């Protein structure tokens, strides 16, 4: 116990993080706690949480950041611990592996191969000297490193390959670190926001999701057109926005984006994420003279005053609502305007699209009805910047390679010993691998077959 007390704090922390038992514990805790956030919906409205859980649980969960648990201090602490654990364990072990991997002159003990139970032995009618050349070239074809040594009454060939695969597990660990670093870069230098752009309009800033603050862009983005198409069944087929990037009013880049095919410019990505309809900027008016019964067609642009026929004064289209309650009924989509007669007071004019005769109730000189010219959409874009993404993707590639090397490749060593017995030779083939022993037995059997084992000469 004396030693333990004498350790410096650094050594104590190092020792703590060098345990694989800790790895297992952290992995299981991460697995268990991750469940919470899948059961309790994340980042919802606080009042909804309050109503669901009541004051006590609400306060408790709030303190523990349960409502945004994957970004909470304790979850980040767990990830950091896992990272330290991986780094410390890898550093502790890699120096030994490194010496093994970069050993120019690997040593081998023939006695170890002799004692392997699954070895293959046979008699060749030639003498050892006659076999050496042939055997060497056969073995060299399948192994990257071979070495022949003379023994008391013959020779032995030692061969190996895949020594470097012992580094596979460190590759996987490196990939996890790379992923976490990439995620960190993204969370520090990146952002996530959204912008809704009506057709024909231009935006030069977006709104950040986290803080709800405006974030100015170095350029402008214009939505030229938005289209949504549907299958016959009514489910959506495609959302498409035609976007143009402008700098100083000059169009630089035009692209139609759909889901799965975003626009990227200067490190900022625009994704098709939602859409909606806007009050039409322009409506078609139909006016009927109360006495003359003459029909007039006119267009009204929002907030632009127009002259009405039959000297009825001026009209301005001011508002458009998706629903309009009237004496307990909903009139649906309704345009609203203000009529200023030549002499008299201004009156509000209510023009429900679905009820063209509604304005008759006003008892004016003209009965006005409105029709929508075309639906005006806005496109909803998810806007992100994440300079860490390429680090993360690099991590992904390293992880796949690392897992493959670690699980399916191994350091294979083989030894072929040829000893003189009378005028003949006794041949032994034996091999070991650091992983997948069953696979290694198959390789040994195959090598013995190549060297000339048959059912007749087998020992």
């Amino acid at each position: 116990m004396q030693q333990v007390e004498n350790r410096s704090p650094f050594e104590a922390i190092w020792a703590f993080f060098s345990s694989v038992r800790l790895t297992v514990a952290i992995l299981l805790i991460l697995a268990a706690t991750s469940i919470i956030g899948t059961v309790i919906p994340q980042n919802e409205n606080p009042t909804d949480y309050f109503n669901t859980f009541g004051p006590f649980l609400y306060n408790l969960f709030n303190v523990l950041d349960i409502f945004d648990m994957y970004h909470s201090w304790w979850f980040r602490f767990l990830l950091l611990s896992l990272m330290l654990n991986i780094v410390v364990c890898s550093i502790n072990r890699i120096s030994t592996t490194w010496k093994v991997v970069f050993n120019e002159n690997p040593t081998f003990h023939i006695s170890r191969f002799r004692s392997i139970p699954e070895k293959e032995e046979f008699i060749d009618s030639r003498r050892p000297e006659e076999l050496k050349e042939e055997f060497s070239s056969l073995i060299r074809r399948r192994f990257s490193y071979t070495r022949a040594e003379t023994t008391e009454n013959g020779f032995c060939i030692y061969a190996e390959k895949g020594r470097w695969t012992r580094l596979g597990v460190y590759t996987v660990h490196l990939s996890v670190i790379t992923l976490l670093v990439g995620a960190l870069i993204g969370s520090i230098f990146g952002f996530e926001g959204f912008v809704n752009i009506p057709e024909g309009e231009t935006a030069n800033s977006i709104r950040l999701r986290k803080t709800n603050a405006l974030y100015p862009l170095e350029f402008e983005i214009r939505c030229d057109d938005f289209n949504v198409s549907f299958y016959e069944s009514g489910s959506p087929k495609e959302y498409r926005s035609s976007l143009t990037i402008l700098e100083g009013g000059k169009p630089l880049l035009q692209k139609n984006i759909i889901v799965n095919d975003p626009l990227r410019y200067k490190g900022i990505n625009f994704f098709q994420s939602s859409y909606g309809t806007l009050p039409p900027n322009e409506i078609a008016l139909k006016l009927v003279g109360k006495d003359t019964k003459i029909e007039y067609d006119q267009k009204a642009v929002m907030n632009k005053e127009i002259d009405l026929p039959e000297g009825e004064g001026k009209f301005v289209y001011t508002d458009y609502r998706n629903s309009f309650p009237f004496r307990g009924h909903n009139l649906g989509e309704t345009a609203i305007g203000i009529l200023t007669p030549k002499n008299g007071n201004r009156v509000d004019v209510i023009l429900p699209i679905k009820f063209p005769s509604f304005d008759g109730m006003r008892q004016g000189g003209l009965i006005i009805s409105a029709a929508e010219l075309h639906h005006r959409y806005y496109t909803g874009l998810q806007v992100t910047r994440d300079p860490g993404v390429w680090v993360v993707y690099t991590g992904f590639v390293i992880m796949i390679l690392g897992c493959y090397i670690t699980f399916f490749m191994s350091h294979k060593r083989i030894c072929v010993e040829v000893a003189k017995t009378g005028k003949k030779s006794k041949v032994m083939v034996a091999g070991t691998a650091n992983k997948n022993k069953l696979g290694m037995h198959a390789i040994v059997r195959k090598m013995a077959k190549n060297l000339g084992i048959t059912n007749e000469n087998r020992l």
Partner: protein
Amino acid sequence: MNSSQLLSIITFFYGIAASLYIAAWIFKKEILGKSASWVVLLGAAGNTAGIIVRWVESYQLGIGHAPLSNMYESLIFFSWTLMIIYLVIERTYQNRIIGAFATPIAFLAMAYASLSPNINDRIQPLVPALKSNWLIAHVITCFLGYAAFAIGFGISLMYLLKQGDKNAKNRMLVHFPAIDVLDELNYQMVMFGFLFLSIGIITGSVWANSAWGNYWSWDPKETWSLITWFVYATLLHARLMRGWHGKRLAFISIVGFLAVLFTYFGVNLLPGLHSYAK
């Protein structure tokens, strides 16, 4: 006959094969086992045909896409991968008792796909989010992983049965593969599954980044796939570094497969981005 009808018939093939494997195990009759192998082989061939026919049908409907787009299609593909992996194991290890533990899983998945009233077997057009080449890579790799974990689960059950019988007295367990072979096989399945689960999560992540602008958003299905990954990562570390073997590993493998099941089915009860996989 359309693909759904063909695949319902394959369900019966797998059901018969499962019964034959179990019968062969109980009554120890070689002929039962051999016929089970043939029925499974025919079933897998029909399953392959069903998937191809369905693919062709979707093009005839003018909404051509790989048959990997909803719960029904994924269950069919899951059964297919499971049976292919099983057939490889049967050939390699020359042991048919594993069939009594693997084929019932494929049969249940197919039966659930064909019979459950909640599962729509019609070919539906792809919604915008699914229109991507990543769909094929993501679904195939995930289900290769899931199928390997399913077989690992079956083998773990066999391990637990076998190791409970210390003195080899139980005649039912005589023809089980040796206990260390089961342990090794479980481990092989987990390694294979882990590699493909990792690739599945990665392809999904790259896909999400091109569709939604986020490679990771802690949606319940993503999170549950990560939980599964943590469980199997635990198993691998426990075995490689702490020398765990046998019973404890079989137990973690079973827990891991329960996490797979929740990732696959349970998550649909929770709200999230993967709602089209219902």
